[in-house]
C-alpha cells in the first residue's frame, strides 16, 4: 500500500458509496475499518480482499448477494449492468388509480370513472348489537370509535406480559439491596426503608399486514379505519398494506390529519384492488423489516383471504421465516364469516400450518372473539 494507497482509498470510498446508494448501511467508521483491514491482508488475493471487506464493512447476510455483485463491479474491473432492474411487477388490474375519500362520516374507495358508491346506503346511528354484527364493508364514525375501544382492550391484553427486567418500584417487589444500602448510609447504617424492584410491564408490539387486493375489496374499506384506530391506541404498531407489492403505511397514517393521511394512502399504496402475491410480499417484508420490527414477543396480525396468485412454496418459505421469529401469528380471514367458506385456497392451506390462531374478521363481534384468544 505505498504507491497505490491513494487510488485504493478512493476506490474504497466509491465502493462504499455504491453500497450506501443501495441501502446497505455503511458509515465512515466502516470505511476506516475496511481501509485498515486492507492493510492487513494480501491484496493480491481476490477472495481474501472480498472476505476482509465483507467483515470490515459489517455486511449483513441479506445483503451478501448485492455485495458480491458490487464487489465484482468495483474490484474486478468488469462492468456489470449498472443499477438494478426495476422490480418485476405482476400484470395488474387496469381500472385506473383508486382514490380514498372522506365524506365526513366514512372513508371510501372511489374509482375515478365511477363516482357512485357501491355500498349505496346512508349510514346512521346503529344500536350496538347490530353494529357489532355488521360487516366492515360499511364503516361509520361510530364504528370507528367502537373499533378504537376494542383495540384499546386488545392492547391491554397484549400488555399483560411482564419483562424479566427489574425496575425500581414503590409497590411490592423484591428488595433492592443496592439502593437500600445507599439509603441506609444516610441514616447511619439503619435500614429505615427498603427499596424495591419489580418486573417491568412490557409494551406490546404489533405488526399488522393487510391485504388490499381485489378479492379483499369489501374489507379494504376497513383498513383505513383500522389503521387510524391502531395508530391512535397502540404505540408500538407497524402497519403494512400488500397486494402485488408491500408498502409500509404506518407513517402515512396520522390520526391528527385525516385528509392528509388519506391523500398519502391513495398515493402511497399502488394497486388498490389489484391481484395478490402474498408469498412474495411476505418475503419482501421478511427481507426488509423482519429483523428490525419482529422479535419473539411481537404479535403479527395478517388480514387476508389467502387467495394467492403466487407460488405456494414461496409463501411457505416466507411463513416459516416469520414463524421462527414472531411470538404469535394471528391470521384473520374475513371470508370465514361466511359459513359456507372453507379454507381450501392453496395459499390459505399452506399458511395455516404456521398460524397460531385463524379466525374471522368481518365485523366487530369477530374481532372481540380475537380478544379472548389473545388473553
Amino acid at each position, binding site marked *: 500500500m505505498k504507491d497505490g494507497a491513494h487510488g485504493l482509498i478512493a476506490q474504497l470510498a466509491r465502493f462504499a458509496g455504491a453500497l450506501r446508494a443501495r441501502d446497505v448501511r455503511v458509515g465512515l*467508521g466502516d470505511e476506516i475499518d475496511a481501509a*485498515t483491514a486492507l492493510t492487513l491482508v*494480501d491484496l493480491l488475493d481476490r477472495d481474501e480482499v472480498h*472476505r476482509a471487506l465483507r*467483515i*470490515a464493512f459489517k455486511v449483513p447476510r441479506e445483503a451478501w448477494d448485492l455485495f458480491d455483485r458490487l464487489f465484482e463491479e468495483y474490484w474486478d474491473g468488469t462492468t456489470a449492468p449498472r443499477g438494478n432492474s426495476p422490480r418485476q411487477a405482476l400484470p395488474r388490474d387496469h381500472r385506473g388509480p383508486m382514490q380514498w375519500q372522506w365524506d365526513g362520516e366514512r372513508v371510501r374507495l372511489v374509482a375515478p370513472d365511477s363516482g357512485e358508491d357501491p355500498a349505496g346506503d346512508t349510514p346512521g346511528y346503529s344500536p350496538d348489537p347490530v353494529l357489532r354484527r355488521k360487516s366492515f364493508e360499511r364503516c361509520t364514525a361510530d364504528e370507528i370509535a367502537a373499533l378504537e375501544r376494542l383495540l384499546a382492550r386488545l392492547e391491554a391484553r397484549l400488555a399483560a406480559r411482564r419483562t*424479566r427486567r*427489574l425496575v425500581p418500584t414503590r409497590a411490592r417487589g423484591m428488595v433492592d439491596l443496592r439502593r437500600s444500602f445507599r439509603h441506609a448510609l444516610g441514616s447511619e*447504617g439503619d435500614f429505615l426503608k427498603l427499596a424495591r424492584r419489580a418486573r417491568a410491564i412490557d409494551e406490546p408490539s404489533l405488526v399488522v399486514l393487510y391485504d388490499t387486493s381485489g378479492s379483499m375489496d369489501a374489507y379494504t374499506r376497513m383498513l383505513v379505519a383500522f389503521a387510524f384506530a391502531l395508530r391512535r391506541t397502540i404505540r408500538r404498531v407497524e402497519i403494512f398494506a400488500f397486494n402485488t407489492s408491500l408498502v409500509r403505511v404506518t407513517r402515512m397514517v396520522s390520526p391528527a390529519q385525516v385528509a392528509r393521511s388519506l391523500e398519502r394512502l391513495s398515493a402511497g399504496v399502488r394497486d388498490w384492488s389489484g391481484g395478490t402475491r402474498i408469498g412474495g410480499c411476505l418475503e419482501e417484508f421478511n427481507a426488509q423489516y423482519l429483523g428490525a420490527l419482529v422479535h419473539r414477543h411481537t404479535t403479527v396480525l395478517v388480514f387476508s383471504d389467502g387467495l394467492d396468485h403466487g407460488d405456494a412454496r414461496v409463501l411457505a418459505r416466507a411463513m416459516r421465516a416469520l414463524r421462527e*421469529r414472531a411470538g404469535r401469528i394471528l391470521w384473520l380471514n374475513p371470508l370465514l364469516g361466511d359459513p359456507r367458506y372453507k379454507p381450501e385456497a392453496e395459499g390459505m392451506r399452506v399458511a395455516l400450518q404456521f398460524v397460531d390462531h385463524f379466525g374471522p374478521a368481518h365485523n366487530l363481534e369477530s374481532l372481540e372473539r380475537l380478544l379472548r384468544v389473545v388473553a
Partner: protein
Amino acid sequence: MNEEIRSVQAEMERCGYIAEPAIATAVFLAREMRRPLLVEGAAGVGKTEIAKVLARMLGTELVRLQCYEGLDTHTALYEWNYQRQLLRLKIAEREGHDPGRLEELIFGREYLLERPLLRAITRREGPAVLLIDEVDRADEGFEAFLLEVLSDFQITIPELGTIRAEHVPFVLLTSNRSREISDALRRRCLYLFVEHPTLEKEIRILESKVPGVNGQLARAVARFVQRLRARELRKLPGVAETIDWTQALLRLHRNALDAETVFATLGCLLKDEHDLKATGQEAVAELLAYAAAGD
C-alpha cells in the same frame, strides 16, 4: 492468502476447529484491529465454539457472559457483597466506629463481587477471551450499556471510582438473530456470519469431533444432513446436531445408515414436532438414497 491468516487457520484446526478462510480472516482481523467480533448465524453452526477455541489457542481464560432477558449490571458487571457488608456494619456498630467512616469501610474492593465483564477487564495475567453469548436475548437497554464497556474498556462504580482494563480482552459476541442487534453495537464490532458448513467441511468436522467414525459413515451422515437442510423445515439441524447424531449412531454400533435406525434416532437431528412429522417414510427413503449415492 496472507501467511498470518493461514497460520490462524492452522492454529484453530490444531485446537479442534475446522475454520474456513472467512472465519480465520475475521479472527485475524479482530485480533489485529483490537475490535470485538460479532458472530451471527443459525443455531448450532459453531459460533460459541469459536470463542472456546480462541481461548485454547491463546492459552488464556475464557470469561463467558450468557445473556438472557432481564440481564442487568448486577449480574453482568459487579455486585456488592451485601451479606459481608451487613456483617461488617454490625461489627462496626459493636466496636463503636465513627459513623462518618462507615462508607469507606464497606465499599472497598474486598466487598465487590466480580461478574464476567469486570472479571474480563481486571484479569492481571494477560488479556482474557470474553464471550458475550446470545446477546440478542438481552434487552435492548443492555446493548447500550455494553457499548459503553466495549468502547472504553473501563467501568465506573459510583462508590469506588473508575476501573480501567489491565489488558484489553479479546471480545466475541454471538447472536442467533432472534432480534436485530442495534446499529451502534454492530458498528463497534467486526462482523462475521457463519453459515451451515459445506459437505467437505462437515465431513472433516465429523472426523475430528467424533473419534472412531469411519470415513464412509461420516460421508453418508454429512450427505444425509446436507440434503435434510435443503428441505422445508422449521428448525434446520446444525453441525452440533450432526455430531450428536453420529455419536448416537456409533453408540448403537451402526456403521451404515438404514431407515429403521434413522427413524429411531431422528430426534437427534430434528427438534421440532412439526419437522419430525413432515419427515416421513418417503422423505427418509429419498434422503437415504441421496446419502448412499455419494459412495
